[in-house]
C-alpha cells in the first residue's frame, strides 16, 4: 500500500513508510512520542502499550499499515485528558511508580480497563494488568493505583 492514514492523539497523519514497520518505531522515532517503551519487542512485557480505538494493544506487534483508519492514543495524548490526569495522579499517589519504565504501559492498560469497566474488582484489575510486566513494585501498589483512579474518577469513565 502507498499511504497509511490514521489519527494519533487527535491529529491526522498520512504516512508512507514500509507497511511492516512497527507502530512502536513510528511513534518513538518519527513522532518523538517516547512514552511507549520497548521492553521486549515481542508482546510479552506491555511497556509499549497504546490504545487502538480505545483498547490496549502492544505497539511493537503492529505493522503500521494495520492502523489504517484507526485512532491511536499514546500516553502523551492521554495525559491531556481528564481520564489520563486521573490515572497519572492516582498512580503517583499510590506508590505505583518505581523505576517507571513499565508505568506508561500500565497507565494505558488501566485506561483500557476503566473504559470498559469503571468499577473493577481486584481480580479484574490484576487480569487487566497481567500483560504488563513490572520488576520493581510487586504490583500491589499499581493495583491500588488503578483502584484509586476508579474511585476518584467516578463519572469520568
Amino acid at each position, binding site marked *: 500500500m502507498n499511504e497509511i492514514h490514521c489519527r494519533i492523539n487527535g491529529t491526522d497523519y498520512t504516512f508512507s513508510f514500509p507497511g511492516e514497520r512497527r507502530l512502536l518505531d513510528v511513534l*518513538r522515532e518519527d513522532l*518523538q512520542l*517516547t*512514552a*511507549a*517503551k*520497548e*521492553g*521486549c*519487542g*515481542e508482546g*510479552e*512485557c506491555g*511497556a509499549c502499550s497504546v490504545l487502538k480505538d480505545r483498547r490496549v494493544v502492544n505497539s511493537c506487534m503492529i505493522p503500521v499499515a494495520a492502523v489504517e483508519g484507526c485512532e491511536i492514543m*499514546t*500516553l*502523551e495524548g492521554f*495525559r491531556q485528558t481528564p481520564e489520563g490526569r486521573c*490515572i*497519572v*495522579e492516582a*498512580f*503517583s*499517589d499510590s*506508590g*505505583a*511508580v*518505581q*523505576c*517507571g*519504565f*513499565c*508505568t*506508561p504501559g500500565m*497507565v494505558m492498560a488501566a485506561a483500557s480497563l476503566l473504559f470498559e469497566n469503571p468499577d473493577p474488582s481486584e481480580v479484574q*484489575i*490484576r*487480569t487487566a*494488568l*497481567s*500483560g*504488563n*510486566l*513490572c*520488576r*520493581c*513494585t*510487586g*504490583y*500491589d*501498589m*499499581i*493495583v491500588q493505583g488503578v483502584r484509586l483512579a476508579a474511585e476518584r474518577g467516578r463519572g469520568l469513565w
Partner: protein
Amino acid sequence: MKERISSPVRRVDAYEKAGGYARYIADIPFDHLLYGKLVRTSIQRGRITGIALPDLPEGYRFISEGDIPPGGVNQINMITSDWPVFTTGEVRFCGQTIGLLVGPDRQVLHELHKAVAVTYDIEEGSSTIEEGLACRGGAFVGEDNIYVEHRLKKGDPDAAFSQADRIIEDVIETGFQEHVYMEPQGITVEYSNGQLVFHASCQCPFYIRKAVAPSVAMNLEDIIVHQVTTGGAFGGKEHFPDIIASALAVAAVAIQQPIQVVFERREDISYTPKRHPSQIIFRTALDRNNRIIAMDVDARINAGAYQSCSAVVLQRTMFSANSVYDLPNVSIRGRAVATNTVPSDAFRGFGAPQGIFAAEMHMSHVARLVGEEESEFKRRCFLKQGGRTVTNGTIHEQVLLEQMWQDISLESGYYEKLKSNPSGSFRGIGVSYYLHGGGFTGNGEQALIDSHVRLKGMKDGRVELLLSTVEMGQGLATTYRKIVASALGIDISRTIFLDPSTNRVPDSGPTVASRSIMVVGRLLQRAALQLKTCWDGTREETVEIGYEHPPWVEWNQETLQGDAYPAYSWGICVTEVEVDRASFEVETKGVWTIHEVGRAIDEQIVHGQVNGGVIQALGYASLEKLELKEGRFYQNTLADYMIPTSLDFPPVYSKLVENPYEYGPFGAKGLGELVFDGAAASFAAAVQHAIGRPVGRIPVTPEYIMELMSDE
C-alpha cells in the same frame, strides 16, 4: 506537630514517570547519532581463527582490538582486569564482545551484522559448578578453575564433630536468575574536545569512568559519566555497563561522533550477567538431644568466565551461610568456580540469598529429620545481641526476631494452618528467618570507596544534593531529599537532587550493597546538620562530608575475621501454598512479612521495596528457570524466562518494626536486599510441607515437584 520522617510523601519522580515525561536513554535524541551493534562470540569455548567482514559501506566501521588508541590496553578495569574489551584469540564464553559495528542506519547495521562470519577452533567447555571443578576441557583459570577460595572457622568444629551423636548431610542448590530490569542496557557516548561523555542507564557512574580509562589511555577527569533515568537495575547495571562502555569508548575515540548501544531483550537475557548459581553442601553434627553442636559448610558458586565481583559475592554467601543462627562450632569453605558461562555478577542480595536459602532449607531438613516443628527448632538457635557471627564478629544491636515472630505467626495463622494442614496434605505453610548486613562487606567502605557527599546551600534558600549514588527506581531521589530536608528543618520542595554526573558530584560510591541509605544517607544527614550551623538560606554555602567508620567495628580483611558488617537488618517471611495434585502447579495462597530496618525513611517506599523484593524472590523460587544448553541460555526471551505477573502471587502483607540504628540516618539501616533474601526459602518450605518431602533446590517447578513425588 513535627512530621515523623517515616510518614510517606509522594515520590518526587512519580508524576514525570507516570505521565511519560521521564526520558530514558533510548528516548533521548542526539544529533548525528550513530548506532552500535556488538559482534559476539557464538561458541562456548575455543579460539577465534578468523573474522570475515562484509564490505562496509561508507560511514560504517567495525571497531575491534586494533582500534584501541596508543597507550590503551585491551582490558576493562573492574575489581580485577581479566575481562578484555575485545576478544581476539581465546573465547571463554558465548557472547563475548569481538567488535562493535557502528553506523548511521540500523537497518543496514542489521544486515551487516548478519553477514559477519567468525570461524573458530572449538574446545570443550564447562557450564556447571561440577564441570568447572572437574576442569572439563582443561582449567582456564589457574590450575583448578578456582578464582578465589576462603575458609572460616568458629569455635572448634573438629572436636565437636568427633563427639557427634548423629551427622546429617545435605546438598542445597540454586539456579541462575536474570535481573529483567524492564529497561534493557543502554549507553550513548559522545566525544569532543578530548573528552568522552557517557550517558548511561547505570548504578555506578564512577565505576564506568574507572573501567574505561585504561582502554583509551585517558585521564579520569576527561571521562564524564552522566547517569540518566534508569529503568531498574537490581545489580545488573552495577558492572555490566562497564563492558558496553569500554567498547563504546574505543569506538568514540576512533570515530568522534555520538554512538548509542541499546540492547534488545533477547540480547540482554542472552549475554548479560546473572545471579550466581550455587551448590552448598552441609554436614551437621547433632548431640543426643538433637541439638546442633557443629556445622560444616562447603559453598560453591558458579562465577562464570571472568571474575568480575565474584570474590566479594562469595564472601556474602559464606557470611550468610548460617542465616540468623548462632551455632557453636562452624567451619565454612567457599569457592568461586570458573565456568564457560556469561560471568555471574551482582544481583540484589549479592550472594546472601544463596547462603540464606541453603541455611534455611538445611535447618528445616534437620528439624524434619529429628521430628521437630521447624520454627521451634530454628528459633532455639537465633542470634541475639552480643551473639557471635561466623566471622567471629559481634551482633551489636538488639535482635527483635522473637518479638517479630510472635507478631507474624499470629498474623499469618502459622500454627493453626500447620495443624489443619498436615505434612503431605498438598497444602502447606513455610517460614524463613533472615538478615542482611548493611553496606560493603568488611572494610570496603574505608578501603575501597572513601565516599563523600556535598550539599550546596543556595541564595534562594534551596539546597542541592551532590552525590553519585543514583535513583534507579528504589526511591533514593525522594528519600535523600527527605533526609536532608528533615535534618535542615526545611520543606522537601527546597531540596534538589539531579541525576549525577561525575564532573559535578563527589564520589559517594556505587549504588549497591544496601549502603545507599544506611551509609550515604547518614553522610547526607551529617552534612545537612553541619550546613545548618553555617548557612542561613540567603547566601551560598557548601559542605562536604566524608565517610567515618563506626569506631567499634573491628575487621581484618586478611583473615576475614571480625564484624563483617556494622549492622544488620532482619526479616521473617511466611508463605502458604497449595499444590495441585494433577499438575503439581503451586498456588501461593498468602504471603506475610515483617521487617526490621532500623527506621523507615518513607513507609510507602519501604513497603514498595518489600513487595517488589518479595515477588522477585518468589519468582526466583518458583518460576525463573534458566538453563544452559551448549553454553547458551535456553530461556532467552520474556516468553520463556518467566518473571511474575500481577496474577502469579497474592498481595503481600508487610509490617515494619522499628529499632533505630545509631549510625544510620534517623536510625535507618539497609533495606533493598534484605527484602529479597528470605521469601524463596519460605516458599520452598511451604511446598515441602505441602508435599511431605524435602525440597533441595530452586526453582521449585512443577517438573521438580513431580520428580520429588515419584520418589516414593
